[in-house]
C-alpha cells in the first residue's frame, strides 16, 4: 500500500532517528518515522508497554526521552509526523525521490515516498565465537539487556557477564538490580584504559558518562558484584544448556595467562564485544564506507551527516559506534540537514542554517559531536577485542551458528582451497550464508580468514546483503504484499 508522499523519511526510531524526526518536523517538514520495534526508543530507550516510567531505574537520560516523546506526540497529532512502528524496511529504491518499502509485522507491505532520507538503523552486538557459545543460556549482552528492559525477563539466576566495553557495566547493574546473582563481570581490557593521556580529556568533558560509572560502582557494591579487569571467558559448558563457564586472566597483550583458568557454575552468560553497525540499507543505496577504529565498517558522512549518496543522511551507530548521546546529536543535525535538502537546488547549494537561532544551535551540536566522537574513539582504543579468542578456539567450535560451520572447515578452506577473503570463504564454506546472513559471524570470519590466509583484516564483503530482512516469497512474487485493510490509519500505530 502506498501512502501520500512525505518530505523526509526517517528509518529507525532510536535516539538518532527519533531526534532527527522531531528536528525535521520542527523545521516544518512532513516526516515518516519507520521502526521495526513495537515502540519508539530504539535499543537505548527500549521499554515495556507500561511506559518508560515503569522502569525508571534501568534508564539513563530518561528526561530526554520524555521531551522527545512529547515532541513526537504533538507532531503525530497534527499529522506532520507519521509514526509507523512494527514496520521493517526491507529495501529502498532510489529515483528522483526515494521509495521506502517496509513490511508490517512481516505480513504485508507498505511503501513511503520521500524526497530525503535519514537512516538511523543502529547496531547489534558484536560477537566472537568461543567453545560452547551456541548453547541455550548464552546470550548477547544486548539481548540480555533487551529482555530485561522490554519484558522484565531475567536471563538466569546466576549470570556471568563477559566481553569488553562500558556497556557490560550497564547490563550487569540491570541484572543485579532485578535480583539475578551476577557472578562476575569479566572485562577483557583494563578499566583504567579510559584514563590514559588523550582519553582523559574526552572522559572529563563527558561528565555524564563518568557519573553513570559512579552509579554502577554503587550498584555493584550493594549487590556484591565483582568486576574483573583483564579477564575473559574462554568457554561455556553444558550438554543441552549452559551450566558453567571457564574464565581466565589475560596478559597485557591479551593472551590467556597459563594456569589462570577457573570454572564457575552459572545458568546464563551475557557476552558482548562492542557493537556492529547495521549497514545493509545505506550500503544498498551506494553510500561510501570505511573501517572505524573498532574494526567495524561504518558509513562515511560529512559535516551535515550527509552520505556520499545525495539525499541520504545517516546518523547514530551506523556512522561509528558512539552511544546514545552521540546518536542524538547526529540525529538532530541530520534532521535539520534533511529538512533543508528537500527545498534547495541540489547542484549549487551548500548548507546554511536559516536563522541565527538555528545557526547557534547547529554550531553547538557540531562542537558536541566532536567531543563525543573523541570520547568514542577513546572507548574504542581502550576496549579492543583481545586476540585471546583466536587461541581458545577448538577445531569443532562453530564460527557460523546458522550453517554450523566449524573453525576446522574454515581453516581447511584457507589451506586447501586458497580462500583469502571473507567473500570467498562465504561461497566455499557457507559461512554467513544462513538465516542471519553473516551478521553474527561476519567480524569473526574476517578475523579468521585474515589469520589462516595470512592476509589483511577486511570486514567488507559480508555486509552486502540483497535484502535487509527476510521477505515472504509472496511479497517478491507479486511485487506488493496483500493490501492493508482500508480503514487502517497511518498514524500512531
Amino acid at each position, binding site marked *: 500500500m502506498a501512502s501520500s508522499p512525505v518530505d523526509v523519511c526517517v528509518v529507525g526510531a532510536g535516539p538518532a532517528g527519533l531526534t532527527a524526526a522531531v528536528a525535521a518536523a520542527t523545521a516544518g517538514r512532513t516526516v515518516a518515522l519507520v521502526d521495526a520495534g513495537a515502540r519508539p526508543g530504539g535499543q537505548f530507550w527500549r521499554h515495556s*508497554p507500561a511506559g518508560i516510567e515503569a522502569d525508571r531505574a534501568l534508564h539513563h537520560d530518561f528526561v530526554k526521552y520524555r521531551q522527545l516523546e512529547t515532541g513526537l506526540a504533538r507532531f503525530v497529532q497534527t499529522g506532520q509526523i507519521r509514526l509507523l512502528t512494527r514496520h521493517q524496511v526491507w529495501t529502498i529504491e532510489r529515483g528522483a525521490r526515494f521509495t521506502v518499502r517496509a513490511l508490517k509485522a512481516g505480513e504485508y507491505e507498505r511503501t513511503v515516498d520521500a524526497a530525503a532520507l535519514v537512516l538511523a538503523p543502529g547496531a547489534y552486538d558484536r560477537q566472537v565465537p568461543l567453545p560452547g557459545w551456541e548453547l541455550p543460556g548464552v546470550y548477547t549482552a544486548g539481548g540480555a539487556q533487551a529482555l530485561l528492559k522490554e519484558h522484565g525477563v531475567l*536471563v538466569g539466576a546466576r549470570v556471568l557477564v563477559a566481553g569488553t566495553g562500558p556497556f557490560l557495566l550497564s547490563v550487569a547493574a540491570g541484572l543485579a538490580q532485578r535480583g539475578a546473582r551476577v557472578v562476575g563481570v569479566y572485562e577483557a581490557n583494563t578499566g583504567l584504559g579510559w584514563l590514559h593521556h588523550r582519553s582523559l580529556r574526552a572522559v572529563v568533558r563527558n561528565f555524564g558518562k563518568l557519573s553513570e560509572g559512579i552509579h554502577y560502582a554503587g550498584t555493584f557494591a550493594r549487590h556484591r558484584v565483582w568486576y574483573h579487569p583483564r579477564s575473559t571467558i574462554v568457554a561455556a559448558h553444558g550438554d543441552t544448556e549452559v551450566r558453567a563457564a571457564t574464565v581466565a586472566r589475560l596478559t597485557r597483550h591479551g593472551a590467556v595467562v597459563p594456569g589462570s583458568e577457573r570454572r564457575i557454575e552459572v545458568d546464563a552468560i551475557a557476552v558482548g564485544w562492542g557493537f556492529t553497525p547495521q549497514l545493509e540499507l545505506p550500503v544498498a543505496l551506494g553510500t561510501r564506507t570505511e573501517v572505524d577504529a573498532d574494526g567495524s565498517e561504518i558509513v562515511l558522512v560529512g559535516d551535515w551527516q550527509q552520505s556520499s549518496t545525495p539525499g541520504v543522511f545517516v546518523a547514530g551507530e551506523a556512522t561509528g559506534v558512539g552511544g546514545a548521546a552521540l546518536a542524538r546529536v547526529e540525529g538532530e543535525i541530520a534532521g535539520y540537514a534533511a529538512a533543508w535538502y528537500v527545498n534547495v537546488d541540489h547542484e549549487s547549494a551548500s548548507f546554511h542554517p536559516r536563522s541565527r537561532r538555528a545557526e547557534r544551535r547547529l554550531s553547538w551540536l557540531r562542537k558536541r559531536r566532536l567531543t563525543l566522537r573523541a570520547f568514542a574513539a577513546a572507548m574504542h582504543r581502550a576496549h579492543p577485542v583481545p586476540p585471546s579468542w583466536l587461541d581458545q578456539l577448538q577445531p569443532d567450535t562453530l564460527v557460523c*551458528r*546458522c550453517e*554450523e560451520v566449524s573453525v576446522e572447515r574454515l581453516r581447511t578452506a584457507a589451506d586447501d582451497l586458497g580462500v583469502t577473503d571473507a567473500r570467498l570463504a562465504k561461497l566455499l564454506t557457507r559461512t554467513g550464508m544462513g*538465516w542471519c546472513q553473516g*551478521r553474527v559471524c561476519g567480524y569473526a570470519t574476517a578475523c579468521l580468514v585474515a589469520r589462516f590466509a595470512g592476509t589483511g583484516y577486511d570486514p567488507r564483503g559480508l555486509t552486502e546483503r*540483497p535484502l535487509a530482512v*527476510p521477505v515472504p*516469497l509472496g511479497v517478491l512474487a507479486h511485487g506488493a504484499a496483500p493490501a492493508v485493510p482500508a480503514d487502517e490509519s497511518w498514524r500512531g500505530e
Partner: protein
Amino acid sequence: MSTFWFDGHEVPFRPGATIGAALLASGIRSWRTTRGQGRPRGVFCGIGVCFDCLATVDGRPNQRACLTPARDGMDVRSQEGTGHGEFAG
C-alpha cells in the same frame, strides 16, 4: 492472564510480551534444533538479528520468537531443521 499453546502446553504471558520472552519467563530456553547437528537453540541476540529463536507459529514456520508478539490462544510449536523455506532472504 492470557496464554498461548507451546507444543501442547499452556504458556502464560504479560501484555506486550513476545513469544520468546514468555517462553523464557516460563523457564523454556530452547525450541528449535539445528538442521546439521540437531542441536538445541533458543534466544541468543534477542533483537531479531541471529535467527536462532525460530518457531512455527499458527502453522507458519521460521518465525522469530523474539520479535513475534504473543497472542491469546496462539499455537506455537518447536521446530526441527529448517521448518520449510518460506523466505527468500
